[in-house]
């Protein structure tokens, strides 16, 4: 449910770290809470964001929600497949349902994020 090598935010995003780059998406828990995703709005490649900025929007049959980046940096890739197939966020949140890739400006911000174990504990406390 929660890949061990990823880091997690309190806003239910995951990041997969590759050097100074991260790939970012929403967690299995988040996609389940949102329900069937029907539209994803992505940022433009090259846009710079500060940590906790909203980088995009996910619309499900229930609600419209912001997607936040837990780290500062520049968008270097977006998952354009989501524009035609938003259901990938539900079907494969950690794989084909990724949202953006960012070049981090401060890798130290990763220390603020949770491990898979900590995130699971956080979910239990929230419930």
């Amino acid at each position: 449910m929660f890949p061990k090598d990823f880091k997690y935010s309190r806003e239910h995003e995951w990041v997969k770290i590759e050097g100074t780059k991260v790939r970012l998406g929403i967690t299995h828990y988040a996609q389940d809470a949102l329900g069937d995703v029907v539209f994803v709005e992505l940022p433009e490649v090259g846009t710079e964001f500060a940590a906790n900025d909203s980088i995009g929007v996910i619309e499900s049959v229930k609600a419209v929600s912001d997607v936040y980046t837990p780290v500062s940096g520049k968008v270097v890739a977006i998952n354009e497949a989501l524009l035609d197939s938003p259901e990938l966020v539900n079907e494969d949140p950690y794989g084909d349902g990724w949202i953006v890739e960012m070049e981090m400006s401060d890798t130290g911000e990763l220390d603020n994020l949770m491990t898979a174990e900590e995130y699971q504990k956080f979910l239990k406390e929230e419930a």
Partner: protein
Amino acid sequence: MTEPLIFELSKPGRKAYSLPALDVPEKSLEDLLPEEELRQKDPAFPEVSEVDVVRHYTRLSQLNHGVDTGFYPLGSCTMKYNPKVNEDLARLPGFAHIHPYQQEETVQGALKIMYELNRYLSEITGMERFSLQPAAGAHGELTGLMIIKKYHKDRGDNRRTQVIVPDSAHGTNPASAAVCGYETVEIPSNDKGSIDIEALKEAVSDKTAALMLTNPNTIGLFEENIEEIAAIVHEAGGLLYYDGANMNAIMGIARPGDMGFDIVHLNLHKTFSTPHGGGGPGAGPVGVKDFLVPYLPNPLVEYDSANNRYYLDYDRPQSIGQTKAYYGNFGVAVKAYAYIMSVGGKGLKEVAENAVLNANYLMRKLSRYYHLPYDQTCMHEFIITPKPFKEKGIHTLDIAKRMLDFGYHPPTIYFPLIVDEAMMFEPTETESKETLDNFVKSMLQIARECEENPEIVKSAPHNTPVGRLDEVTAARKPDLKWDS
């Protein structure tokens, strides 16, 4: 039974009209229009007889659910019954057949109503002056924010780029702020569903243009710390904006102006007797405290007491300008005026009291079978969730769909976002105890079904013309055009 599309009723050559013989020379379209303007193919209009048209649309209208057909506890929307007499009054020829460009002397009655309604709304909300121009609630919000923006600008204060909204806000609040060019800053609610005061203190700064708030809030609870909240925002140099969507709960009892709000909008179509939910027209008048009056949209209706004459004042150089053609949706203003006149000050207070009483009665009854996330006296609306049936795999959507089988419009679902699986009920003051009791019986039966026969709830609705719709495919792959 489903109703075919009117295109499917079409038969070539069938008509619902008969035109008189042409008494001028006929000219072909080719003679009148350049070739590039002409259609290559005839449009696919349905060809049907008059009786086909009448029966088709009558049947469709009978498939509707409205306040005139049944209970409609759609939270946050105030779907109360509106007296029909107010419709009749708005359609009197002296109101319905006048033109906005008529000379002022010939429409003194209409101008008087606009002026007097402004005074009534000011009294009800504790404001100095109202503009009736905005066409609806969100338009009122935008107008209010434009006033806020111009106010700060005229003071030479250009740092204020942020508007603060609580996480329980109506979605239109941050949307209006964004349209007005503001950055929105969201602040969390505390475990009682109210604004987290410490978070607000941290959020305000010399960048704060305004805080947008509705009170009672979207959870149906009164912000008890409103005076402290107002003081925090004002000390930081920001203004306080009141989203009047929930005014039905406090009319005649509490006034936003007295709580410290500087600017309000009201939804006349919710609180003051205009049917809504069908696409309008509505009205979202904006009222302000005295220091903001110069910024209200142009024109304002003024009264010249020396000559006993009403007139439109355009000579207001600080105004943000016109936000809608002419003077607003005048027919809606007539209905609000008639409603306020007919129920009176005491009646408005009773409206609020009964709205709150009905909500609390229903909340206590339903909380026996459903989960009540905020267990305290509510205002005009409240939230319950189907948490007790989580193990059975029952979601809010299932219960909402099952209510259709009992002939009820469901509550607002999955809002506010801060409550998991929210179902938000607003019974309004116009419903009798019998209506509420019958509704409770149906909700009890649904609760029993959730325990004993969850499948019937999960596959609902069963008694409607069509069953559970595939909302996901409809949203992902919308098919909006009919092709033969």
